[in-house]
């Protein structure tokens, strides 16, 4: 004890200095520390440094609670993984049972919409990819939301995309829930309709409509929209089903062109059919007189069209 007192007395100046430092720092900490930004920073930095370097014993209770929370999260995730695996196996089994093909993954080309165009009340979008990028006529165009249209004309560097918001575009579609088939068509007055659906068929508001595999142009299973309303008018055989499209056609910026087309022969037939239709729809010239030879030729054309339709 005497030694201790002697030690303190020997270094009393240092102890007094440390005492005053301690009191001063305590007073500063008790005061309005926000007034002195530099000191606040020093304190925070010092505490952080001390905690990092010297507090080796962790907070056990905090670690316990964190551990239990992580275990719970792990259990949930594990359960989800297991469910996904079970679903995958079930799916595979059912597919095998039904003899269905595996869904194909198509290669896609990303393109930017660089402009829009209207020709004869038909709406088109121009994209910055063409034949050089491996694009072809009739390729399906979609974006992240759903179906946009198909390529109508293909240049070397640019392509013209015919949007589904055209009255003459008909998209064979299917109700994902009930499997009811129909044709999606724009009615020309800001409405996308699912046509050719008989009244008694099972279609409900909120059903998702996708492209069907019966389409010659469009790749199957591309989302089109959801059923917004269904009306059944008296005396009519078909329901009036309105679809709300997934795609916002006023702001299309990036699209994906699915690099898949039907058989070349089918495409050739469609093209031929469309050209003949155009010829038939041409009004007769005023100066043109009725000639039996011409009439016979027209008759033959119509017959050949019927044959194509049969095919």
């Amino acid at each position, binding site marked *: 004890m005497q030694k201790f007192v002697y030690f303190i007395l020997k270094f009393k*100046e240092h102890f007094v*200095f440390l005492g*005053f430092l301690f009191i*001063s720092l305590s007073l500063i900490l008790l005061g309005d520390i926000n007034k002195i*930004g*530099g000191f606040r920073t020093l304190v925070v930095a010092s505490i952080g440094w001390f905690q990092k370097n010297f507090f080796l014993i962790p907070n056990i209770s905090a670690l316990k609670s964190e551990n239990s929370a992580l275990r719970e999260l792990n259990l949930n995730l594990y359960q989800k993984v297991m469910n996904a695996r079970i679903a995958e196996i079930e799916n595979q089994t059912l597919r095998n049972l039904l003899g269905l093909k595996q869904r194909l993954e198509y290669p896609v080309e990303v393109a930017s919409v660089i402009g829009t165009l209207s020709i004869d009340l038909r709406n088109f979008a121009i994209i910055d990819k063409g034949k050089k990028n491996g694009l072809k006529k009739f390729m399906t165009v979609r974006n992240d939301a759903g179906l946009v249209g198909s390529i109508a004309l293909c240049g070397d560097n640019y392509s013209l995309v015919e949007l589904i918001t055209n009255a003459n575009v008909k998209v064979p579609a299917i109700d994902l829930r009930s499997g009811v088939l129909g044709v999606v068509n724009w009615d020309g007055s800001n409405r996308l309709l699912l046509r050719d659906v008989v009244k008694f068929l099972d279609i409900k508001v909120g059903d998702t409509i996708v492209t069907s595999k019966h389409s010659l142009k469009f790749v199957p299973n591309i989302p089109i929209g959801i059923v917004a309303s269904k009306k059944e008018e008296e005396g009519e055989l078909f329901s009036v089903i309105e679809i709300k499209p997934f795609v916002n056609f006023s702001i299309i910026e990036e699209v994906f062109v699915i690099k898949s087309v039907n058989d070349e022969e089918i495409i050739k037939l469609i093209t031929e059919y469309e050209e003949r239709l155009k010829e038939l729809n041409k009004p007769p010239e005023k100066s043109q007189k009725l000639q039996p030879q011409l009439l016979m030729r027209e008759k033959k054309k119509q017959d050949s069209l019927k044959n194509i339709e049969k095919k």
Partner: protein
Amino acid sequence: MKDLGVTATKKNFLSKFIYYSIATLLICVLQLSFSFLISIKGVTPDFIVLLVIWITLYEGKLVGLSSAFLVGLLYDYLSMNVLGVNALTKTIVAYIVGFFYKENEFWNILKSNKIFLISFLSIFIHHIIYYLIMINLTETNLWSMYFKYLIGGTIYTFIFTFLTFFTRIRKFW
């Protein structure tokens, strides 16, 4: 004889206490009310550091530390600063100056060149710590402001310290 000696020491201590208290009050008033008259671009000399150096060199480390702490605390209170900032920095100054203290050597130190070293060193360290604590972090040119007050304040205070000691040596007062 012994009682007389103790009484004389007590009287001496009391007179010194009164003397230093008056000096402290005067310097605090001077610092708070008149230093702005001689400020150069916001930089003012710190007269309280000067007082602390004087007391520590004259009276010793222990008295110097105690008086530095009390003077700093009083100045914090009068200037409405955060209590403890000046107490801390002035105590550090007294501690540094205390290393140069030698009994009955005050006038010799004052007459030697050592006083410049002591003054400059203590003032410089005081300003480093003081402005590091008091610096406004929202200042856009933080470091330039810091060095302005650090260098400017040190030089300005040092000039006044030098003048004070010089005039005292020459017995102008």
